[in-house]
């Protein structure tokens, strides 16, 4: 999903309705190309970086056909791409003279079983020749010039003599070869050698001289040869011829469609007109216009192609591209939202729609003489609607009938009708709400990956939010918007009203839909409301708000909030798997039980107070269970300063209570007063010191330094005989520093 979102701009219209898989990569995208079905082969711009393995596979397959599949593909692969020259020579000798000494692995090669030895020899001679050409063909300049001896001795441009010798050899073998298939391949090798040597004039002359051989078989080699010829023209700045050849490759040979497209660069009007003049057939001309349409000008291109051939399949891609490009103008795109998401996302910018385009689509739709009339009707209907023209239904109805078996098209039409219904619908109108319901239920259901339901859902929600807010139906507007903003005036009251709304009996279908968009459930809201009493340490009050079920949510504490240490090491507590964890509810229930125990069990009162104190301490920012502060609208962070910035605070937050250790200190003092055990008292007193120290942070002590020395004085004077006192010295650096002074 995420990839799809990044793949193309916000859109309601799936280009896949054209079913033009061949052109899929040219659908409108944020990137150079639309997401490819096989992402591994493409970089982050969906751009393919190397064709070598494609060519190798195809080459092997073509040789396989040459041998009528009597030679195994793996054997061909070995000879073409792995074997050393010596091994190829050995195979040649073996074919010529069976019994020639040969290794076991090589003797298993099925090329030796070919009965037509002449064909096998032609292949092997050619493989040897290709291998000799390889180092020139695959030449890449060194990374860094400095470690080259000047001039670069490996550059074929500096090896003209060797290349002449080699190409002359190739030409001779070309003459000797029996079939056009093999002759064509020799011609290709020689052509490429000339190209790599920078002999572009020779390239053009050679191609023209060997044209009949090169074009004798319309296979990969033929089009790769055309590619080198185009490159040679390009180097000679003969852009007219180069672009013409690129357009042929683009239109006729799918393997090289993308690279030919990216090589196509008309420079001036003059050479573009020459290119058009070179095109021999309507099809060739139309292919040129299609490329121009993808690059720059779909409307002009469609008009030209339509004039050449109304039934041309080259129109299909341009229609869906034109629609998608137009959407970028009339649908707000991310980045254009500005401050008000709802204000932008709810709007169709009808005035932005290109009227000339709509007129053209409609006139073609009206003519009905294309290969896929539904596509034109759908496009004309959709863009008519977008431009605010009521005549759109007529076209959609026509498209519906024309593509009755095509589910993607039917869905697309239904989606356009739905956004149309919403856009013109009136908030609060029962009839509208009723007709809307089944449609939105359908839209929110499952659809094929290509179908663009998400953007339509977002538009519908934003559009309805705005409309219901405008008629003063705040509750529905808030639900439809999905997110709650706790800074809203009267937020606490709004939460109460939402709770009432949630519990309203006999809700209408539309009310259910609106509630369904809200990202908060009843227990989420109750937890938010309970935050205030909970962090005022009013546990009974908090439980009363939570009611029978809320607070049982998955967010348990990470550690036991009733244990305490000299140092607040939260991670150590989290790692201690033996510690008992609590949900908000079970924590509150234990705190209430402890409060009751104070009265019911006087013998244990010191320990009970101590546990209450630990609970109160650990639920604060400083404790191991600060996560108890989290609700869907309040989060905790390790960053003290971030959370001391209370600008985010609202009427449902309780930042004071979140930081305050006062209640904990009160309980520690009660525990201290209720006990006679010196060790226990030392422990209580040290915790009181910690609470006091934390209070200085709450008051703005940002130095992190110890700042309540008077408490250390007491600790030293009254508790130094306790064993615990020495544990404090061992563990607490502040205290050690204090003692050194």
């Amino acid at each position, binding site marked *: 999903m995420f990839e799809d979102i990044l793949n193309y701009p916000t859109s309601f219209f799936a280009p896949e309705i054209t079913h033009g898989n061949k052109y899929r990569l040219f659908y409108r995208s944020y990137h150079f190309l639309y997401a490819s079905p096989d992402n591994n082969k493409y970089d982050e711009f969906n*751009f393919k970086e190397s064709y070598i393995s494609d060519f190798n596979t195809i080459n092997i397959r073509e040789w396989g056909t040459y041998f009528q599949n009597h030679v195994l593909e793996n054997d061909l692969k070995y000879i073409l791409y792995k074997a050393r020259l010596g091994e190829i020579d050995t195979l040649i000798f073996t074919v010529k003279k069976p019994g020639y000494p040969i290794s076991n692995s090589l003797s298993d090669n099925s090329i030796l079983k070919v009965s037509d030895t002449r064909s096998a020899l032609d292949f092997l001679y050619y493989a040897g020749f290709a291998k000799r050409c390889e180092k020139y063909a695959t030449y890449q300049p060194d990374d*860094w010039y*400095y*470690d080259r001896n000047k001039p670069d001795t490996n550059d074929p441009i500096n090896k003209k003599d060797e290349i002449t010798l080699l190409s002359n050899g190739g030409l001779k073998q070309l003459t000797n070869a029996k079939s056009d298939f093999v002759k064509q391949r020799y011609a290709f090798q020689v052509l490429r050698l000339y190209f790599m040597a920078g002999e572009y004039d020779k390239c053009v002359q050679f191609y023209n001289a060997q044209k009949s051989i090169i074009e004798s078989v319309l296979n990969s080699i033929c089009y790769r040869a055309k590619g080198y010829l185009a490159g040679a023209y390009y180097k000679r700045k003969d852009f007219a011829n180069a672009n013409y050849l690129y357009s042929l490759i683009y239109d006729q040979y799918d393997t090289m469609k993308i690279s030919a497209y990216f090589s196509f660069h008309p420079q*001036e*009007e003059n050479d573009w007109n020459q290119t058009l003049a070179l095109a021999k057939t309507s099809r060739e001309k139309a292919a040129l216009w299609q490329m121009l349409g993808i*690059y720059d*000008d779909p409307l*002009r291109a469609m008009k030209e192609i339509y004039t050449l051939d109304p039934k041309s399949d080259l129109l299909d891609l341009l229609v869906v591209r034109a629609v998608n490009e137009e959407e970028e103008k009339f649908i707000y795109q991310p980045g254009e939202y500005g401050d008000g998401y709802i204000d932008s996302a709810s709007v169709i910018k009808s005035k932005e729609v290109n009227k000339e385009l709509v007129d053209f689509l409609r006139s073609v739709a009206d003519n009905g003489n294309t290969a896929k009339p539904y596509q034109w009707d759908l496009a004309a209907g959709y863009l008519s609607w977008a431009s605010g023209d009521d005549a759109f239904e007529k076209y959609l109805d026509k498209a519906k009938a024309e593509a009755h078996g095509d589910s993607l098209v039917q869905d697309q039409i239904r989606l356009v009708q739905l956004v149309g219904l919403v856009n013109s619908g009136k908030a609060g109108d029962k009839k509208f709400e009723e007709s809307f319901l089944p449609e939105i239920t359908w839209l929110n259901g499952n659809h094929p990956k290509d179908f663009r339901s998400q953007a339509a859902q977002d538009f519908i929600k934003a559009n309805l939010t705005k409309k219901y807010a405008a008629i003063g139906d705040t509750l529905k507007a808030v639900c439809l918007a999905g997110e709650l903003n706790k800074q809203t005036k009267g937020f606490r009251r709004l939460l109460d009203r939402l709770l009432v709304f949630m519990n309203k009996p006999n809700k209408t279908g539309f009310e259910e839909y609106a509630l369904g968009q809200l990202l908060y459930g009843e227990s989420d809201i109750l937890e938010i409301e309970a935050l205030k009493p909970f962090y005022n340490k009013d546990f009974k009050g908090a439980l009363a708000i939570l009611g029978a079920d809320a607070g049982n949510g998955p967010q348990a504490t990470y550690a036991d909030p009733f244990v305490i240490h000299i140092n607040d090491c939260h991670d150590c507590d989290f790692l201690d798997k033996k510690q008992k964890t609590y949900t908000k509810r079970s924590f509150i229930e234990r705190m209430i039980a402890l409060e009751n125990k104070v009265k019911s069990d006087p013998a244990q009162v010191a320990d009970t107070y101590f546990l209450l104190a630990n609970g109160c301490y650990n639920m604060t920012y400083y404790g191991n269970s600060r996560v108890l502060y989290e609700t869907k609208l309040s989060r905790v962070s390790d960053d003290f300063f971030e959370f001391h910035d209370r600008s985010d605070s609202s009427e449902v937050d309780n930042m004071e209570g979140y930081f305050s250790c006062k209640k904990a200190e009160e309980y520690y003092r009660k525990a201290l007063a209720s006990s006679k055990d010196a060790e226990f008292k030392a422990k209580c007193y040290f915790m009181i010191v910690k609470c006091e120290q934390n209070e200085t942070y709450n008051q703005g002590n940002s130095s992190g330094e110890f700042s309540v020395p008077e408490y250390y004085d007491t600790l030293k004077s009254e508790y130094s005989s306790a064993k615990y006192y020495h544990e404090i010295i061992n563990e607490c650096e502040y205290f050690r520093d204090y003692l050194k002074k």
Partner: protein
Amino acid sequence: MTRSSRKYSNYLVAVIVLIFSVSCKHNTIKPDRAFYYWRNGFSLSNKDVAYLKDGGVTKLYLHFFDVGWNAEYQRVIPVDEIKIDSNADNMFQYIPVVYIANKALEETAFDSIDKLSRHINAEIKHVAEVHKIIYKELQFDCDWTDGTQKKYFKILSYFHKELKKSGIILSSTIRLHQVKYAEKTGIPPVDRGMLMFYNMGKINAIAGYNSIYNERDANNYASYVKTYALPLDVALPVFGWAVCIHDGKVTGLIEKAVDADFADTALFMSGGKGIFVSRKAFFLHGRYFMKSDSVKMERISPDICEDAAANINKYLTNEKRTVSLFDYDSLYLSTYEKKDLEKIFALSN
């Protein structure tokens, strides 16, 4: 920020403010005058030399090469290496500049940065040796991002150490956003920064708006220059370009464009305020214009450059620095007479 570094930076600010407050009236030390030479083919005619000498120019920043990513070879390689036609004799001081593309850094693992640095170093030395260029300063240019900052700074650290041995100054270009958000973007580990006092606004379709230099955008940044933690040289713009606009949206830039490029009245009509509107659809210089597309000329005239010089001068301390104009191209400099250069450099005093 730790306490000690905060204390230190407060101290630094105090010192800088002190220096500034006693010196802001007049910057009395004259700057070195320089130009960037950014084209690949370096060749100076006698006329060029006379123009530069006449303007008191002593230094030329030469674009040596880019360090780029070659997708086809899947390698980081030097591209657009300088080709020097005329002898780079000792008429000027030459400062090699190497531009590093972010993509090249993204594609290089952090552990391989030192290896890349060695390559770059050898390459620079090689080019300098071939063309007999002796340099006392070396400059890197990189619009580093959060993701590439550490790698770029590692390269700079490598060169800082390397160059120290031979007493060569290391500098880095500094973009305005890097000055304003210095805490976030970091201060490069170099001897000096070259503040690029241009390209400050968002390129847009608004008629009359100049994204290369305009005072309003400049003032969003200029005050931060005072407190930047590196000694700064300054680069001022003397160039122009054309912004291509389709349906009110920017679709591209044509570098080195001048009005004459759009003078064919069969193709364009004037839309006023430096805007040309296409009369029909056509190809021109490899670019397709649809009917009613427009180009907006943005160009730095001598007046604007003088304004920029006067503006930045308000924020600079009285120290020895270089003021360099970007870039040396007769296409634009034909309107810059000697008196204009004098004024610009004098204002930067």
